[in-house]
Structures are given as C-alpha cells and as structure tokens.
C-alpha cells in the first residue's frame, strides 16, 4: 500500500496542504525548519489511517485554535492489499488515480484503484472516518477501525512504551492475536499472577493494608474488612500490566533509542502484510552509527511498503538520496511539501556537500572555505550582540551556511531556492564565467552578495587597509602559513621586480623598498589569494577576528557595506526582501 496524496485543512499549524506523492516514493524523509509542521504531517497520516477509534483532540489541534473550522484530512492510498480491494472491505469504494496523480471517481481505464480515506473532526471535536470519492456526492460511507487496521500503519514517536506492553493497540498484542487463545492465556496468566502475588506478599504488608482499612473505617469512609495488596488487573492496567522484560529488567527502563528500535522491531513482526511506518525525528535517542544503520534498514526492509520519517539530523540526510527528501515549508498556515525534483542538477551534490543546509530556513551559499569561516566568525559575534539586545539569533532564525564549492555556488543556490528555501549567494567577483549563472540565480529569487567587480574577499578587504593593518594581516598570515619565511617567500613569488621584503612592517616597505601603499596592497592581495593564506574554514574564522577588530573602520568601505547588507538580510525576521539588488546586472555591467 502506498500513500499517494495528502490533503489537510485546518489541522494544527496547517491551514492547507495539498501534497502529491509520486508512485515511486517508497522512502520519504520530511525536512524543513523546526516549526514547519513535519510532525503534524505524520500525525495527520496516523490519525487518519491508524486503527484508533477515539482521538484525544484539543483546541490546539484546530488551525488557529478555532474549532469553528472543522479539520479535514484526506489520504489517497494505492497499491491496496488484496483484502482491502475485496467486496468484504472497500471493494465498492474504489476510486482511481493515474501516474500523474489525477483522480477519478471510479478506477476507470488508465487509472489504478485507490481509496481516499477522510478524517473530519467537527467543532464538537467528534472524529469521523469515511471514504471520500472524488467528484462524488455525500454522504460518504464510514470506515471502521477494523478496516483501518488492515492499512497496517505504525508510528514511532516519543510514546513508544505502549508498544513494549500488551496493550489494546500495541504491536505485541497484534502478534499475540494471531496466536490462538492468547487472550485466554493472558487472562489465566493474570489470574495465576494474582494468586502468586497474594501468596508472596509479606505479612507486614498485609498488616499495613489492614491498618489502612481500619483507619479508613475510623475516618468514616465505610468499612474495609478485607483490604490487601495485589496485582491491579482492572481497567486500563489489565492489559498494560504485562510488559517485555530483558532478563529482570523491563524494556521500558532502557534508553529511548533502544526502546524506539524495539518498538520498530515488534511492529515489523506484527505487520501481517506490508506496512507503512512513520518515524518522527528518526535520530532521536540514537548515536550516529545506530542512526545510519536504522536508515539503511528502513530503506531496504521489504516489509515496509512505505516509510515516512522526519529528521533534523544532517547525518541522517547524508545517508539518503536527494530524491528521498521532501522539503516542508509553512507560510501563514499555507504548507507546501516538495520533493527534491529528479531533474534538478546538483541536488545530490548539494546534499553531499552541505547536508545541514537542507535543515535551515535561510541558506547562504558561499563560494569557498574562506567565506564560510569568515561568516562563522562574523555571525558568532553578531549573534552575541543580538543576544545582548534580546533580538533573534541566527540559529533562531534558521540560518545555515552552505559550501558552494567555488563556481558551483550559483547552481546550488538555485537548487535550494526552487525547493522553497530563502537562499542567498555570497561570492567573489573575480570569475567572469559565473556571471550568467549568478544572473539566473537572481531571477530565482536568490539574494546575491558580491564584492566589487574583479574583487575576491581578500582583495576587497586588503584594498581598504593602511600600512599598519596590512602588517597585522601579514602577522595573521604567519599564523596560517606557519612562519614569516613562508609568507615572505609567498610574497616574493608575486613580486615582479623582486623588491626587497625586509620584514612584516609594511610601513617600512613604503620607506625602504620602493612600495606605494597600492603596490603593497596588490602584492599582499595576490600572495594571499594565490598562496591560499586563508583558504580554510579555521583561517576564515581567524580572518573574521581581524575584520571584527576593525569593523567600525571597515564599515564605511565597500567591504563593510556589503557585509552589513548581508547582516541585515540574515537578521531580518520577515522572509524575502521584496527588492533585490544585483551587483552583476546593475552597476558593474
């Protein structure tokens, strides 16, 4: 059985969602910023397809808390199991869906049979499960909990302990049901346990119980002549009292990760046919190696016909194909869910290169490692200021930095922008071959931050520095290059007329070595770039310290102006600025 379409109205943070799931999606990983409603999607599927006949519904399950607008969730299922397709179940309620997701009232030619399960929750918080027919007329036929059980849908969330006990809906109970006389066995076991417990209860406990009985009598709560300790086999406890043990330790005492894995294992065993499994925050409670293993298992296990997981983990995303990812975005209640399209170039490369970018709201695609380091350092300092001022930090705003790998940066930015992310490019301006792609990125709503024409980060910075600052920069280069000798040899490599480089004091160069401030800047700039003084994230961070120490002074220069523009964009709380500036098509061309 496959989920092919999900339609949601007024459920939690989702005012509306229409999500078509192509027929080949067996493993679906929902990603998107933290509060985008991924878990609500899993809950919507589970509420609608699960076998529960009552739901604990609260005001907050209605969009905007307004229970006047009833909740509607519709799920289209294809590749139906035999029993579902039969007259005994939904054989007279089949609709049709074609390869492109179009629906028809009947499974006509060119359409495969499907059913549309609808859950509505009215303003009285009363859930109704029914079978919707596209272009059909109400009333819809209702669908029983017994039939929904055949959908075999499981959800693993933070309430897994239920599945490790013999409770009404747990996988263990399902497994037991397939074994004849199990309920009788359980009843007998409970009775035997009851007897055994009453035999081993120490007399002191019995005495205590009797004393309590007496006391209750004294304070006027009636007479309790036979009060004694025992196993509670009444009500809800009667099923939950039996639990899985490992040796002497109940599994419910183990760590969350183990418990979730055990729950998945029992449910895999319990699913009679093929199942659909929903795992919320798959990385939860698992070390990286167990997470990687679990993902591999879920993607290959034939018993699952479809798997939906949510994740915030870059490690998880790294294990997947870009086609597995569905990006969830939520704007004013309007939710969109988009698969990373097959025809998008570089999707897989972006996934491998910067998996964490997929988890952010706002992504800055940078040209290289220098820029990443520079941004990391700057953002750290900007965040500290934001914290002091009580405004949102970059992590609160969901900002991520992605390595664009040089000239690939614009195409990667386009990939991400098409998926609904707020994307910006932070790139040098010394490579003309990137211009056309940058223009294209800009037309895909990618915000572009770029140095002046012909400039890279190093040259844009260096052209504003005076002799003292140039000296400080050379000192920094000595750190990254190891010693002065290396820096000196770097400089000599690019010194056309072979002037003397007496020492680190650029002031001395101007006096003793025929340098002008301009030629000094050009030499340092060339050496810095060609000898990769700062081409490393760590070095970029060091460079950011250098910049921050001179920030006020730099902020009137083009270098600082562009950084401030970037800063403004990063810390803006609304999403995309309406007007975009573009250094490529604007002033520079």
């Amino acid at each position: 059985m496959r989920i092919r379409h999900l339609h949601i109205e007024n459920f939690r943070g989702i005012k509306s969602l229409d999500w078509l799931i192509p027929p080949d999606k067996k493993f679906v990983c929902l990603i998107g910023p933290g509060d985008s409603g991924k878990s609500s999607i899993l809950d919507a599927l589970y509420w609608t397809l699960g076998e529960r006949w009552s739901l604990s519904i609260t005001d907050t399950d209605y969009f905007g808390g307004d229970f006047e607008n009833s909740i509607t969730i519709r799920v289209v299922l294809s590749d139906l199991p035999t029993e579902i397709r039969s007259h005994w179940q939904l054989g007279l309620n089949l609709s049709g869906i074609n390869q492109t997701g179009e629906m028809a009232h009947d499974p006509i030619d060119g359409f495969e049979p499907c059913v549309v399960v609808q859950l509505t929750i009215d303003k009285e918080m009363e859930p109704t499960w029914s079978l919707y027919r596209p272009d059909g007329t109400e009333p819809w036929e209702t669908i029983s909990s017994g039939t929904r059980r055949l959908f075999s849908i499981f959800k693993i969330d933070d309430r897994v302990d239920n599945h490790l006990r013999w409770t009404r809906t747990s996988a263990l109970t399902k497994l037991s049901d397939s074994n004849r006389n199990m309920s009788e066995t359980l009843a007998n076991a409970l009775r035997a346990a009851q007897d055994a417990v009453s035999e081993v209860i120490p007399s002191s406990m019995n005495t205590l119980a009797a004393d309590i009985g007496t006391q209750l009598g004294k304070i006027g709560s009636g007479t309790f002549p036979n009060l004694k300790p025992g196993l509670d086999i009444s009500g809800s406890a009667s099923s939950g009292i039996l639990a899985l043990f490992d040796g002497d330790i109940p599994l419910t005492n183990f760590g969350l990760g183990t418990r979730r894995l055990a729950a998945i294992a029992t449910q895999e065993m319990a699913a009679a046919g093929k199942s659909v499994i929903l795992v919320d925050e798959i990385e939860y409670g698992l070390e990286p190696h167990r997470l990687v293993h679990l993902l591999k298992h879920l993607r290959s296990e034939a018993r699952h016909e479809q798997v939906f997981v949510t994740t915030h983990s870059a490690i998880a995303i790294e294990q997947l194909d870009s086609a597995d990812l569905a990006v969830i975005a939520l704007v004013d209640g309007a939710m969109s869910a988009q698969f990373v399209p097959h025809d998008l170039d570089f999707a897989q490369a972006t996934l491998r290169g910067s998996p964490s970018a997929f988890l952010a709201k706002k992504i800055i695609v940078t040209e290289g490692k220098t820029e990443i380091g520079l941004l990391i350092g700057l953002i750290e300092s900007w965040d500290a200021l934001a914290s002091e001022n009580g405004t949102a930090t970059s992590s609160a705003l969901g900002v991520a930095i992605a390595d664009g790998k040089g000239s690939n940066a614009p195409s990667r930015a386009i990939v991400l922008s098409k998926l609904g992310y707020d994307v910006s490019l932070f790139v040098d301006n010394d490579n003309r071959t990137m211009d056309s792609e940058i223009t294209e990125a800009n037309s895909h709503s990618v915000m572009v931050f770029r140095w002046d024409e012909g400039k890279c980060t190093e040259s844009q910075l260096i052209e504003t520095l005076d002799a003292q600052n140039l000296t400080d920069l050379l000192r920094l280069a000595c750190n990254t290059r190891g010693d002065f000798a290396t820096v000196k040899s770097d400089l000599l490599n690019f010194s056309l007329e072979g002037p003397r480089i007496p020492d680190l004091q650029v002031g001395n160069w101007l006096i003793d070595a025929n340098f002008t401030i301009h030629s000094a800047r050009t030499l340092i700039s060339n050496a810095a770039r060609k000898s990769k003084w700062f081409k490393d994230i760590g070095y970029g961070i060091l460079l950011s310290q250098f910049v921050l120490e001179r920030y006020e002074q730099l902020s009137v220069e083009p270098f600082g102006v562009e950084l401030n523009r970037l800063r403004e964009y990063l810390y803006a709380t609304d999403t995309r600025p309406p007007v975009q500036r573009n250094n490529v098509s604007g002033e520079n061309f």
Partner: protein
Amino acid sequence: MERELRATAQCICNSLPLSLEMPAGTGKTHLVAAIATIAAETSKRTLILTHTHSGVDAIRRRLNRFGVSSRAVHVDTITGWAFDLARSYPLLAGTPIPAVPDWSRSAEYIAGATRVAGSSAIRDMHSVSFDYFIVDEYQDCNQNQHRFLLEIARAIPLTCVLGDRLQGIFRFRNEAPLVDWDVDVSSRFPPHAQTFEAQRWKGHNEVLGEWLLSIRPGLLLGLPLDLSAISIAGLTWKTIDSASIVGEALRSRPPGESVLLLGKWAADLDDLGRNLRGVYEVMEELQGKFMIEFLSLIDNSPATDHAFLLAQFAKKCFTGLAGIDAAVLRKLESGVTISHLSRPGIEVVQQVLDSILTGSSLDALANAMGRISRAPNLKLFKREAWNDSRTAIENASGSEDISALEAFGRIRDSIRHRGRRIARRSVSRTLLVKGLEFDHVIIADADRLKDYANLYVALTRSRKTVTVFSRRSIISL
C-alpha cells in the same frame, strides 16, 4: 449436514464450472448452502446470487443452519448486486444511479453493472473477493442478466449455476427474452449429471413428492395434466366455485401449519383476501404499486383531502367498512363531517376521519391510521400494504427531507436486505412465492394460470397437501 449432501456438494466443488438442472423440491437451496459451507470450511468465500428476495432469505436461513459465517458468503439478488455495482461506479457504468433504487429501472442497473463488472478493476475486485460463484434459479435470467453474470463468472471461474427450466416464470413485458437452457446455459457451463430425490416432502407427504417429480417430464413437453385420474394422498381436485374456495381456505388445519392460497391477478388476491375477512394476509409485490398510488396522492394533495383519501384506502384494506359508502365518501371529499351519520359499528372510524377532515399533519394521519387498525368490527386483510404505508407516513412526518413516497421506498428497500415476513396464511401469486414452501397450497383457478411452468411452481410449493380448483379436471394451458 448429511453425509450424502456433503458428498454431492464436494463433487460439485471439484467439478466447477458447471450447470445443474434440478426439479423443484429436490433440495436445490440445501445444495447451494452446502457448497458454500464446504467452501467456507477451507476459508474459501462464495458469492451467491438469485432472483428473488425470498430466495435470498431461504439461502441465508439454510446457511445459518449450517453455521456458516456471514464473512464467508455473500448472498444477494442479481439486481441488488447490479445496483450496488452500478451505484458505486457510475463512471464505469456509464450512467448516474440514484441513491435509492427504482426497481422499475433495474434493466438499466443490469446494463450498467455489466460494464462495471467488465472493467479490469472490478474484475479484480470480484476475483479477490470470492473463490466460488453460485447463481440460483438461472432459468429466470433474461439475456441481459445472463451477460452480466457471465462477466462475473469470468472473474470467478469456479462458477456453479443451478435452475430448472420448468420454473422459468419471470416474464415481464418489454424485457429481454429469458435464457434458453440448452443454447445459453449448457454451452457456457457444462451440465453436471446428478440424481435427485424429492426432499421437500420427506416427513410430510413423500407420495406427493414422487408424483410431482413424475409429472415433470410431461409438463416439460407441454402435455396436459389430467387430475381426475390421479389418486394421490393429499392431492385434491375440485370444480371451481368461490364458496368452496373460501371453505377450503378456512378449513381447520393442524396448529402451526402454513397455508398458501394462490390466485392469478392482484385483483383476484384482494377479492380472496376480502372474502376471507383478514384470516389470510394478502402478499404485496415488492415494488408495492398499490401503496405507491396511495402515498403519492397523500404527498401531492392538500391536507384537507387526507380524510377522503384515507377512507378510500382503508376500504381497500379492511373488511367491515361497507358503511363508508358513496354518500360518506362524497361528504369527506367536500370536507363535510360524517360522525353524525348513523353507521353502526364503525363510529370510531367516523370520528377518526372527522378528526383529520380540516387538514392534518402527516403525524396526525399516521396516528389516525393506527386508531383505525385498532377500531372494533374491522378485519385487516391487506396488512402489509396498510402497515408499510402507515410506517412510511410516520417516517415522513418525522423528517423534513423526505416525502411519504420516498420513505416507503426506503422501507421496501430495507426488506430487500432484511427479508420479508411471510404470514402463516397468505394469499399470493406464483410469481411472489417462488422458492417458498408451505404445508398446504390451494390453487384457486388452475386453468387460468399462464403456462405449465406456473402450474408446476404452484403445485410444488406444498409439502403436505395441494387442492386444485379448476373448471375442468384436465388442465391444458
């Protein structure tokens, strides 16, 4: 289940697909249920279709007796199944179908359902739902139904069709011709050879049963039946005369034994019912034309006409209402009260009619009908018609959305699913009692039956005695 029956059923299961022609009373229903039971024992599921609601009931009862779970067998009428398919899949059927069936349009449902059953998705649905397919009373299928059933049989190849060409009495006007057993049935479903015993008469009147089996070949050839020369215990021939028909009907019978009085036309039944003063109940056709006439008048007339319409309707359902004569009806029609007129014995009815004279709600109308039922000195002989009409009016009064006619349609439709109640003493027609059994059968006018098939069906309804009234002792149709 007896060993012999099990062996027969098992042999049939192993030889499918096949057709099997069985005379009346030789345990066809039993065999159908036995096949489904044997299937259920190995977790196989069976679809059983037949023509009539009484046939559906009979098979369900037998299945219950064999203890078969309703999860293993689905029993329905052919048109009922067709309606469900066409209703569920209007695009495949090529025609929109209303939520409540209009059985006068069942030919459309069959045509639509044939297209539905032929689609790949629904062929799949049939094939994953059922392992065996049984059609009973196949002789009653017209060519359109035949095509529909062949589509299903294509999806469920293990098909068994049963019937008896001598019981083919379903012939409505403007309908496709019935199947020809040799041309249509035997060619598609290989005939299965089987010996028969007269089952229905065991422990009742076995001699009668043997005789009924023995006359079948002659009737099949269209030879007249001479009743004067036959001396069979329980078989009586009498010259027709209405007094003796009534006398025969009212003759005392052992307690608990059922009696069926068969007439030919609906009007005959009403006359017989009236003459029998409510001792017998008149069975209504499922569509209920008689009630529909009354209820559509109620729906479409001003409330001030209710008293007049009800008086007319009551006269057709009760004996003892001679006092509601032309004079009374004229007054009611013009809205004049009638309680002051002297009509001894039916004062209650007069009061009831006056009480709704100035226009009443449907609720008051239903209430008035209830009071008339309980009034002294009246005998209700069209009980089914009266009670269902009353319930329909009551249901319509409780809801703003439906008319009395629609409410009636739902009541009759629910009979389709629940099965109908058969009175111990019923007046009916051969068409309505196919598949039913009674201890005693009285055929009121045998020489006017349409054909030998009707005669054969009429004779074979009885387990113990048959009394045949006709003009001549040689019945030639």
